């Protein structure tokens, strides 16, 4: 196992390096920030002065060099926009998004596993049809649309939830609900399919022959065996949550990393983009490793091979 994790981490580093390089150059291809930070009236001298001040007049490769050396000293440079250390800003914003994900994913798993399992027990039954219908709808609604409708319905019309912002637990209900929707919709389907495979296996037959109760057969025998594919898909969905976060944070004014990234791209705040990408990438790779470990936890065959 240990060597395995080591291998994975090594691979992750490779992808990470690749990622950093791509982002660095791509970002700078989007044009110079100077005009964004100077008044429209600014003169060419002012612009040159500004570029010199932030080293944008160096050749790209030089900029890249200094960026890399900076990174190894844990210094991602300062935010043009906020003139604060980029890493600090990212680390300040990251927990919110992390929290969103940390609330969302368990919910998603709980919902999809229970629903999927029950749906699979009587395929074609009323519950099954209902479940797949709802999950389909959930998975195919534009999330910003859901978000805004959610505000209008629950905050304005029914007035049971705050419109936006952070603070009380009620503030989290709508954003989380929006984030849960798609992954849950997808996972219910996955869970249902893999549960049906598990239920048709011989060991389930054997369990019946032992006299095991129906509920135990589903939730003890079949469930754990049908988890692997769910975990796989779930990890991809988890990585995708940042995308949802971008929109949720924009609509609900959550101070998270998704919004930070978008804003910094808009404002050509390269330092922040790089720091943000690196941090999220690390997080995603962490998720991947956790997933690999949970494979081994769920299936002893992997643990022992």
């Amino acid at each position, binding site marked *: 196992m240990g060597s395995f994790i080591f291998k994975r981490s090594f691979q992750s580093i490779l992808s990470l390096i690749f990622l950093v390089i791509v982002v660095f150059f791509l970002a700078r291809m989007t044009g110079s920030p100077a005009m964004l930070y100077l008044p429209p009236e600014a003169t060419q001298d002012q612009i040159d002065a500004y570029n010199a001040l932030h080293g944008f007049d160096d050749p790209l490769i030089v900029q890249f060099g200094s960026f890399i050396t900076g990174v190894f000293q844990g210094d991602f440079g300062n935010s043009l926009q906020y003139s604060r250390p980029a890493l600090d800003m990212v680390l300040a914003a990251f927990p919110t998004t992390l929290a969103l994900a940390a609330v969302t994913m368990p919910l998603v798993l709980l919902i999809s596993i229970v629903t999927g399992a029950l749906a699979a027990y009587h395929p074609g039954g009323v519950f099954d049809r209902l479940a797949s219908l709802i999950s389909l709808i959930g998975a195919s609604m534009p999330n910003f649309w859901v978000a805004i409708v959610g505000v209008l319905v629950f905050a304005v019309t029914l007035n049971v939830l705050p419109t936006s912002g952070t603070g009380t637990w009620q503030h989290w209900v709508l954003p989380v609900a929006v984030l849960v929707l798609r992954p849950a919709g997808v996972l219910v389907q996955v869970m249902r399919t893999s549960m049906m495979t598990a239920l048709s296996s011989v060991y389930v037959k054997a*369990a019946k022959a032992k*006299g095991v*109760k129906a509920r135990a057969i589903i939730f003890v025998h079949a469930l*754990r065996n049908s988890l692997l594919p769910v975990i796989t898909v779930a990890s991809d969905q988890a990585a995708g949550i940042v995308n949802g976060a971008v929109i949720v944070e924009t609509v609900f004014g959550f101070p998270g990393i998704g919004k930070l990234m978008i804003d910094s791209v808009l404002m050509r705040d390269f330092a922040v983009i790089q720091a943000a990408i690196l941090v999220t990438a690390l997080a995603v790779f962490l998720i991947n490793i956790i997933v690999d470990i949970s494979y081994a936890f769920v299936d002893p065959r992997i643990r022992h*091979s």
Partner: protein
Amino acid sequence: MLLSVRNLSIQFPSRAGLVRAVEDVSWDVNAGETLAILGESGSGKSVSASAVMNLIETPPAVIPQGQILFEGHDLLQADAETRRRINGKSISMIFQDPLAALNPVYPVGWQIAETMRVHGIAPDVAQARVIELLARVGISEPERRMKDYPHQFSGGQRQRIMIASAIALKPKLLIADEPTSALDVTVQARVLDLLKEIQAEDGMGMVLITHDLTVVERVADRVVVMQAGRIVESGTSAEVMRNPQHDYTRRLLDAIPGRAGFSDIAAGRPMLEVQSVSKIYGGLARQFARLRTQPVRAVDDVSFTMAKGETLGVVGESGSGKSTLARMILGLDDPTSGVIRFDGRAMQGQSEAEAYKMRRRVQFVFQDPTASLNPRMTVQQIIAEPWAIHPDVLPKSQWRTRVAELLEQVGLKPDHADRHPHQFSGGQRQRIAIARALALKPELIVCDEAVSALDVSVQAQVIDLLKDLRRDYGLSYVFVAHDLALVRDFATSVLVMYGGRIVEQGPVRDVYDNPQHDYTKALLRASGVIPQQAA
């Protein structure tokens, strides 16, 4: 009368219409007695047993008539809960493939204990009992092993664990569905012995579902023979074996290999030379969770020579390295050391072109015809593919007619050419595989467990086909099998492999008439070629 099935019929609705799985079947079994239900795949032999265990879902299945009387009460009338209480407590069941029947993600101890827990025995009591049971079925160090998972045991051990779980509550009746057919022959024998012992101790009744007459002969008191969902013959196993009434039963008996005479064939010049060949696996990345494994000597310093026209039987149990050897002869794997010469030319390190030429002369038939035929190709495409690969053999214009001929040679109809493999029975599929092997008019055909997956009667037919082809085309075979009996009347000489090494080799007659190595003897005994008491 412990359990008696009366006029039972079971039907499955399918898109193809109503399938009569069993029709008006009656049988019964007493305490301490063993009833064998004998039949080939699809004969419906296990359906009635599944009905006893309430494993048949109704709907979709329908049970239009019949009773299942357990100690006088009709289980078919009982409600699900009652039947659940009977399952595992009064009647328990073990299955053909223990690996599939054990839940891969729970420790075996837990699974055995579960049987007891679900029937109201306190977990700690159950735990203690598990250790006894494991010891009883012959698992060493039970305290430690009970924490292990199914995949950490050998096939035989898994079946023992299944048995342990089945007998945990001293059931009155044990239903064993093909309990040994997935196991190596020598292991089969031991598992059957275990079942007999336990039965002797607890005096439970046993229903043994099998396709294997030797098993019946060995353990059953009485036998019912099933064909196409009906019982065609029944009686004490002794008399059924002695003078079978129904000709289906007779065919089954005749089909038992190892009763015909030896085949003697004059050996020609040497064709295949294998010189101190070894294959070492491991150290390389494995499938799935890709991790390093200990090096394994799959084949260990094997040498032999085979002459043209000869049929070499390679016999051994799983893990003996016989299949690895076959793969190397086919050039699918390269030996770690040693040389394999075909017709005097070394197969290793030859150029792409040479290898390509050689493949035309050496063909193959694999164990599982279902797996070795591409399900998305028609028979025509499958048999013609070798010509597509070796275009100079046969002009495209003649493909169809040639395929038709080949199909007839292997006993199929020309109009089968446009079907897909899944539309054929196992035997027929294997015939298709053989037709494909013949397409290139090879000199040597390597058969890797070519008949092991087939029903006994079908085995015989396929073997006969191979014999005819040998006669007509002077083909040579390397015939890999785990059952000595099969090889006996087909091969001209035999290799017995164990743990990657050759433990005995020689002309088939010598090896069978006076085996030298103990392992060979064990094999012979297990496969019933020589009677229990002998040697």
